[in-house]
């Protein structure tokens, strides 16, 4: 029987894992190996994917993939917890403390003045960036879902200027599954840091130690940082750190990155072992007596045979041997083995598979997990059930419940937008607008009283104050929306949305994980495009990037609000919702089109860990809001200010640099005239609208500031409601700003960036035309 036949609440033991390739390896790395006991927690509201509990954590996967896992049911009552040995006093082995395990003379310290390099490596969502921020004093973004960090970041450890620590994207094993995981593996293998700080989530220790086992094989000094120890101990669990140190052969330091506990001790250990290059005392974790010692003999045999090749390829021996057994072709190629040697390896592996009764990858994964279980049995006292887990279960009965998940999601998003646009954001915006208007009036009067030249007066009041002021007033709305999005990110809810939206998204050719970049896209397209790096397939990644611009970013809000207040003041909420839904709907239609043309085939499997819900950190949220506010103000006083002055200049002078009374004679009108025939059919043939839209390519907020400058008599006196509707739809869908296009170029290359810019304009033009035609048919002017 397969896993998909197991019902909710029932337990089963893995008998065999079918399938092949990277996905199968990923399952093994996540702990789905023969012999593992797992429990079905729930199914997503639409019946697919399913949530499992294994090795003390929650994993989600699709039913189709569950069908590849052969299991045998475990009867109720037989699901006995593994007993942990009673605590006994163990002597602290003192690794890295004066070289107790490395007597003086046996190690060579690095020369004075060498910059010590550290790599921060660990599973996704284990708190690496939180620790990085603690160590370096940086303010990098953190969140509560797997895959927040998608690129490496460097910094010096506070108080140690001669150090360089690199925060890497989270990985589950040294067999990378997605593109950002390759960044981490390559860094460790190629840049060879002096020390690896392996951050391990103590509340999910079994799966986290799987990576540790592989890092120890790298023959690089390693220090293990047991993070979230505060959470573990608060729930009645504990870890015998001394016993763990002894078994692993490297220093183990309990810490709480969020609270800043144990950081100094961790740094001392890391700096010491990096300086003295104290490598792990153990790399050999295969048990000679386990299962006839087949894996042990196989690994050691291969180690002897490839020693010279590993040396010349610069690869750690034990790591290379394990990878050969797993069948990693990249590493095998690097070793440049002769045909005869390759055949020899295959014979050894085949013999091991026959003796062990497991295939090559499963045998290695099993060997590692067997050691981890032994290690945890010796040194870890697990809490019965954590408070965080209980809280998450309670919340999930509603937030991911069969009948409540989708309504709850719609309700939460509606509440976020309602609070942003109608209550908090809008209220604060009115206040700020009043202040800006008052300041403009004071300055206007002062300039008039001082008999300032009319042109300069116009530049300051009609140009700078009108342009920058109109954009500034949107600060509260944007900060409020980011506040709610960051709450969703930090709480762990976003991972749940990916879980229950997977089936829906699969219908349009995407995986549930694509929802994360898309939700981020409601904030800003740039991080959204970068967040796609967590997607394991190139097809899904490309498709998600191309769809991200359909999620209306916060920078477009001023445009909507500007037109809504001018033309549809009584239907503001309705139009805002219609615009957001319109963007999503167009995105769905385009996705269906892509699915049938550019990106045929199915989305990659959905395998994702569900983190516990956590209360968003006040410091974290406050920091994010401050960054957003600062960023917005900087943009207003840089890009927007320049655009405003340039637009004012170009609309005030003609080609002979003479002041014009009629802006229709200006340089701007002449230049924008080229595009008039193109935009005429959609009702946006006014040169001022064209200029505003073009300026929006630099920054979307610029559309409003430019309109304020160009339509000094008020936009509602010149345009009709139908034109405004066309303009809203065009603004919603046309090319993203230059920053977003640059990030598309970085991720996919120049051709795709041009495709996005031009494609979005074509789609926007067609949609605006549709709105105009429907409007005219309905008799709206």
């Amino acid at each position, binding site marked *: 029987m397969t896993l998909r036949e197991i019902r909710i609440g029932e337990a089963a033991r893995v008998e065999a894992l079918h399938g092949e390739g990277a996905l199968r390896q990923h399952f093994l790395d996540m702990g789905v190996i023969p012999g593992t006991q797992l429990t079905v927690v729930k199914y997503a509201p639409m019946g697919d994917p399913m949530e499992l509990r294994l090795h003390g954590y929650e994993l989600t996967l699709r039913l189709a993939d569950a069908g590849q896992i052969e299991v045998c049911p475990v009867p109720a009552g037989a699901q006995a917890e593994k007993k942990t040995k009673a605590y006994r006093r163990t002597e602290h082995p003192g690794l890295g403390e004066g070289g107790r395990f490395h007597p003086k003379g046996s190690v060579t310290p690095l020369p004075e003045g060498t910059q010590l390099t550290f790599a921060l490596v660990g599973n996704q969502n284990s708190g690496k960036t939180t620790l990085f921020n603690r160590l*370096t004093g940086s303010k990098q973004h953190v969140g509560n879902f797997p895959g927040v960090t998608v690129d490496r*970041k460097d910094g010096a450890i506070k108080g140690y200027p001669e150090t360089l620590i690199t925060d890497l994207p989270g990985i589950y094993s040294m067999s990378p599954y997605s593109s950002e995981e390759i960044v981490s593996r390559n860094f460790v293998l190629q840049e060879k840091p002096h020390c690896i700080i392996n951050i391990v989530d103590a509340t999910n220790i079994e799966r986290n130690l799987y990576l540790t086992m592989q890092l120890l094989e790298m023959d690089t000094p390693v220090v293990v940082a047991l993070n979230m120890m505060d959470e573990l101990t608060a729930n009645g669990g504990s870890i015998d750190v001394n016993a763990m140190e002894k078994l692993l052969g490297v220093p183990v330091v309990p810490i709480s990155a969020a609270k800043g506990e144990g950081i100094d001790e961790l740094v001392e250990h890391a700096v010491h072992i990096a300086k003295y290059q104290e490598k792990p005392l153990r790399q050999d974790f295969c048990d000679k007596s386990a299962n006839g010692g087949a894996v042990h003999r196989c690994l050691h045999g291969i180690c002897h045979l490839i020693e010279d090749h590993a040396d010349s390829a610069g690869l750690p021996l034990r790591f290379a041997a394990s990878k050969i057994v797993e069948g990693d072709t990249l590493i095998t190629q690097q070793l440049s083995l002769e045909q005869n040697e390759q055949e020899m390896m295959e014979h050894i592996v085949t013999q091991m598979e026959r003796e062990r009764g497991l295939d090559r990858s499963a045998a290695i994964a099993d060997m590692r997990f067997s050691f981890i279980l032994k290690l945890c049995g010796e040194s870890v006292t697990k809490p019965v059930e954590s408070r965080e887990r209980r809280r998450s279960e309670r919340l999930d009965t509603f937030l991911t419940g069969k009948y409540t998940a989708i309504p709850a999601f719609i309700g939460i998003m509606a509440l976020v937008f309602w609070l942003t646009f109608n209550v908090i954001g809008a209220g604060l915006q009115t206040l700020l607008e009043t202040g800006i208007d008052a300041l403009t009036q004071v300055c206007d009067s002062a300039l008039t009283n001082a008999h*300032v030249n009319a042109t300069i007066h116009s530049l300051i009041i009609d140009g700078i104050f009108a342009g920058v002021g109109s954009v500034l007033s949107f600060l509260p709305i944007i900060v409020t929306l980011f506040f709610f999005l960051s709450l969703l990110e930090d709480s762990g809810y976003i991972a749940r949305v990916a879980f229950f939206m997977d089936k829906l998204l699969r219908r349009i050719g995407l995986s549930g994980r694509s929802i994360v970049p898309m939700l981020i896209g409601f904030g800003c397209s740039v991080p959204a*495009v970068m967040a796609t790096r967590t997607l394991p397939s190139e097809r899904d990644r490309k498709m998600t990037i191309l769809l991200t611009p359909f999620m209306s970013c916060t920078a477009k809000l001023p445009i909507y609000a500007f037109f809504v207040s001018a033309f549809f003041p009584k239907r503001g909420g309705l139009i805002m919702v219609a615009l957001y839904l319109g963007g999503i709907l167009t995105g769905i239609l385009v996705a269906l089109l892509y699915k049938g043309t550019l990106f045929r085939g199915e989305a990659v499997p959905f395998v994702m860990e569900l983190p516990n819900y956590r209360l968003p950190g006040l410091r974290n949220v406050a920091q994010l809001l401050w960054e957003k506010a600062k960023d917005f103000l*900087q943009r207003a006083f840089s890009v927007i200010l*320049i655009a405003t*002055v340039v637009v004012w200049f170009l609309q005030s002078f003609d080609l002979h640099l003479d002041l014009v009374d009629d802006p229709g004679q200006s340089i701007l009108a002449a230049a924008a005239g080229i595009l008039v025939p193109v935009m005429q059919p959609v009702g946006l043939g006014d040169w001022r609208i064209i200029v505003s839209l073009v300026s929006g390519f630099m920054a979307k907020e610029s559309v409003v500031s430019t309109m304020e400058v160009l339509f000094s008599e008020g936009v509602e006196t010149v345009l009709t409601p139908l034109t405004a509707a066309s303009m809203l739809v065009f603004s919603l869908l046309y090319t993203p700003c230059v*920053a977003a296009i640059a990030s598309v170029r970085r991720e996919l290359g120049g051709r795709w960036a041009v495709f996005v810019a031009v494609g979005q304009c074509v789609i926007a033009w067609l949609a605006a035309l549709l709105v105009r035609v429907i409007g005219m048919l309905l008799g709206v002017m």
Partner: protein
Amino acid sequence: MNLTDILLLLAVAAAVVLAVIGCIRRKRKGCGCGCDGCTGCSKQKRSSGK
């Protein structure tokens, strides 16, 4: 043009020059989008120490 006009004009010119310098600095510092605080920038930025 009187002295006030000239001073105001200089002030506007200085503001524009400062804005341009700010744009260039932010572009160099961040991911290219110019926004220092966005997640994209903070992910790419080589923070303190470099």
